[in-house]
């Protein structure tokens, strides 16, 4: 007790302080997927996953085989049903998710009272950098963590105190955890393990962990019956296709695990100290050069500062794992074995159930890691001061990462708003290919995604691709017609990156980099806008008048990206256009050296043909503007200057059609 206010109240207050300032965080990362499920729940609550979806450029007929069952979708659906959808949906949902960090804090507090030498261990758990960052997300990881921790806490308490009611509530919470994440079925195993060790004379202790697997069996059975297939089949297939089990990927995950653990989970100083003191520091010292070698081998191309950070994290991660092992072995108590097996189950899950390493995947390891660090039965017992030090480090890092992540979330919203403004009136002819918050905010601006194998990308369609937010690949037929339009980068104030390929930061997936975060000023996001070449895609409809019998307009790829359109001269080309207008047309005219571009432009619409002024922008770049018209023909007269008489062909390079102002 601290004065009259109980410790748990302080704990909840701290948890609130860590979460409430971030309720304004825009929709970020995979929030968008769960929000889409939640929106569907509101429409058809009995079939929460029965709707088509585009994921990474591929269309799936339904979301039944999504990696998570629908608890989070239901929770979001309930919040939307109660408080409505709209521009502030992010605030409503974040406020509605505050319950989960509070439940986790209570669960950890109860477990700390039972297993730890100080209740301050619970503070260490809630100030885990990974936990702080993920507590600002609308994904299933924190609900899973909260339910499973509280479930085990109530179960242990119920068995210890012989209170069947608590044990049953623990069973129900375990079912909720499993309904948030299939892998949380591990909670039931942990409960049964405790029962095996304690051998309680209570039926509930043996039966209550059955609630979760039974509930999930019913859910899987009904869903598989509804969708006429075993719904987890495709989930497993995705994991296999993503290389989750191949040797290279396993090595990658083995390497990412200690790095991410040391960098984001918690700094368990007592465990590190234990590892350092073992066998006259020899194993700890030997691990250091091994780490240097591993980093050099697997991340030799990273910048020196990134390699140094990675080496430090790998060394510390190795020490933490050694410390965990030594803690269980040396203490040898029933409690340490119980928590040790719990930790081992979590580690197996982290290494084998996912396709990459991620900070949030480490969360199931957080409770047993903290409890082993501050284990009551360990000698000597760990002091409150150590817990305060561990928490302070976690707090500093967690808040810094959260602010950087908040900025990244904001950046994606800013990008979408910027594109919404600059491409106003052109949303119907613009498609994007990316995931995360970018996807959500672009959809909110009225833009649609494109499919990797889609055949509906017509001439003039603008394609927007991010560099970080899982850019969709473009099929080779469309790729061969893409013309660069512009590229723009977005920065943030804090030089910390959580998801950035060039900074090798992969907080949400080690596929982006083997560091959980990186200190870098690399652009948070870079947007590339390209256009499906109007002249190439519409070529069958473009009319060419030329004296030569075999003459034709020939599109050829440009080595630096883009399309050259070779046209014969003299000739007259009529280009039908019914896209958005007014329109700004830009192109480069590549003729013979020191020759004026031999092109005259005419605008033919509403039974009137008027000359158009061609402006010169740079060395060989020209542009002209056309006013509003529903339908028109753009007529190009080629070879219309006297000094072009010797030319046989002319190259029109990277012809793009944009909103007035150029769309940037």
């Amino acid at each position: 007790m601290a004065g009259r206010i109980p410790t748990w109240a302080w704990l909840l207050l701290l948890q609130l302080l860590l979460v409430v300032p971030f309720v304004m965080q825009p929709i970020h990362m995979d929030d968008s997927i769960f929000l889409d499920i939640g929106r569907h729940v509101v429409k058809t609550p009995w079939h929460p996953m029965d709707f088509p979806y585009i994921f990474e450029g591929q269309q799936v007929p339904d979301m039944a085989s999504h990696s998570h069952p629908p608890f989070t979708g239901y929770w979001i659906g309930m919040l939307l049903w109660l408080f409505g959808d709209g521009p502030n949906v992010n605030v409503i949902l974040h406020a509605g998710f505050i319950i989960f960090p509070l439940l986790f804090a209570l669960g950890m507090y109860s477990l700390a009272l039972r297993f730890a030498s100080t209740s301050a261990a619970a503070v260490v758990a809630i100030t885990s950098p990974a936990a702080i960052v993920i507590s600002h997300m609308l994904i299933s990881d924190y609900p899973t963590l909260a339910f499973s921790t509280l479930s085990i806490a109530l179960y242990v308490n119920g068995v210890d105190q012989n209170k069947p009611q608590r044990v049953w509530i623990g069973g129900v919470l375990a079912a909720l955890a499993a309904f948030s994440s299939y892998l949380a079925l591990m909670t039931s195993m942990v409960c049964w393990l405790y029962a095996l060790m304690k051998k309680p004379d209570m039926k509930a202790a043996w039966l209550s962990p059955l609630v979760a697997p039974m509930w999930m069996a019913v859910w899987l059975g009904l869903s598989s019956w509804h969708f006429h297939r075993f719904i987890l089949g495709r989930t497993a297939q995705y994991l296999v296709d993503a290389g989750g089990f191949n040797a290279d990927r396993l090595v990658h995950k083995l390497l990412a695990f200690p790095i991410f653990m040391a960098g984001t989970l918690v700094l368990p100083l007592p465990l590190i100290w234990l590892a350092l003191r073992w066998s006259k520091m020899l194993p700890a010292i030997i691990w250091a050069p091994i780490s240097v070698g591993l980093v050099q081998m697997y991340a030799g191309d990273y910048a020196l500062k990134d390699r140094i950070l990675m080496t430090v994290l790998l060394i510390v991660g190795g020490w933490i794992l050694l410390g965990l092992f030594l803690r269980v072995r040396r203490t040898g108590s029933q409690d340490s074995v119980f928590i040790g097996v719990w930790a081992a189950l979590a580690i197996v899950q982290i290494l084998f159930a996912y396709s990459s390493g991620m900070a949030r995947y480490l969360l199931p390891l957080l409770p047993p890691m903290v409890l082993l660090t501050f284990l009551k039965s360990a000698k000597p017992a760990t002091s409150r001061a150590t817990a305060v030090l561990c928490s302070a480090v976690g707090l500093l890092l967690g808040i810094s990462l959260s602010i950087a992540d908040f900025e990244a979330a904001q950046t994606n919203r800013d990008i979408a708003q910027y594109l919404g403004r600059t491409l106003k009136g052109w949303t119907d002819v613009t498609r994007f290919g990316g995931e995360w918050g970018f996807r959500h905010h672009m959809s909110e601006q009225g833009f649609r995604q494109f499919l990797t194998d889609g055949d509906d990308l017509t001439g003039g369609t603008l394609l927007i691709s991010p560099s970080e937010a899982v850019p969709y690949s473009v099929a080779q037929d469309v790729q061969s017609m893409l013309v660069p339009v512009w590229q723009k980068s977005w920065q943030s104030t804090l030089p910390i990156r959580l998801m950035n390929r060039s900074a090798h930061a992969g907080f949400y997936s080690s596929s982006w980099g083997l560091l959980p975060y990186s200190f870098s000023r690399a652009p948070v996001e870079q947007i590339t806008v390209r256009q499906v070449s109007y002249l190439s895609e519409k070529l069958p409809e473009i009319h060419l008048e030329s004296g030569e019998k075999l003459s034709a307009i020939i599109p050829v790829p440009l080595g630096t990206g883009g399309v050259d359109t070779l046209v014969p001269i003299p000739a007259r080309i009529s280009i039908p256009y019914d896209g958005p207008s007014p329109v700004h047309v830009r192109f480069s005219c590549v003729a013979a050296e020191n020759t004026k571009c031999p092109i005259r432009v005419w605008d033919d619409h509403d039974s009137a043909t008027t000359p158009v002024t061609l402006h010169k922008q740079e060395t060989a770049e020209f542009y002209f503007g056309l006013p509003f018209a529903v339908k028109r023909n753009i007529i190009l007269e080629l070879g219309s200057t006297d000094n072009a008489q010797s030319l046989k062909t002319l190259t029109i390079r990277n012809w793009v059609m944009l909103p007035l102002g150029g769309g940037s």
Partner: protein
Amino acid sequence: MKIALAIVVIVVTMLAGVAIAQESVPSLLRIAADKGVHQLGAGSETIFLYRFTRGGQRRDALVLTPSVTFETTPFRAASHHCVSLVAAMPFTLGDGATLSVSVKSARQSQRVFQLDLDPAHVRADRAWLPIRFNLPAVRGDYTIVFEVTAGARGDQTGDWVGLSSGTDKSCLFGS
């Protein structure tokens, strides 16, 4: 009873024979792979296996570039009376290309099919086009030879022609 049993044995044997015969004809891609044709790698290959999309359909294909011929392994005469394939050019570039197919036996080589493809200028060519042609009556074993040449203006830009299994199961390469 014995007669019925004999009929059953004969029918089962015939069905098995048909099944084995059908299975014994590998796909065009399998034949190409067996002849050492690999997936597209560095980009300098002239004949290769490549997965590409046309008209929203992604298919594995054997791709030929201009002035390269691909000759199948020999087939027995009269094993099939037709060939079923689909063809497409992966890129919307250049002035098109021409696919020619010949049947070659010990005695003669006979052109049996020709297809002009120009996806840049002909919208209908921006899809997988079904190809079906009858095989001429030949004596002895025969091979099928595929060849790609540049379009009418001689431009070789993007002149890749992809071939994949056709839809007519009764024909060679149909699936």
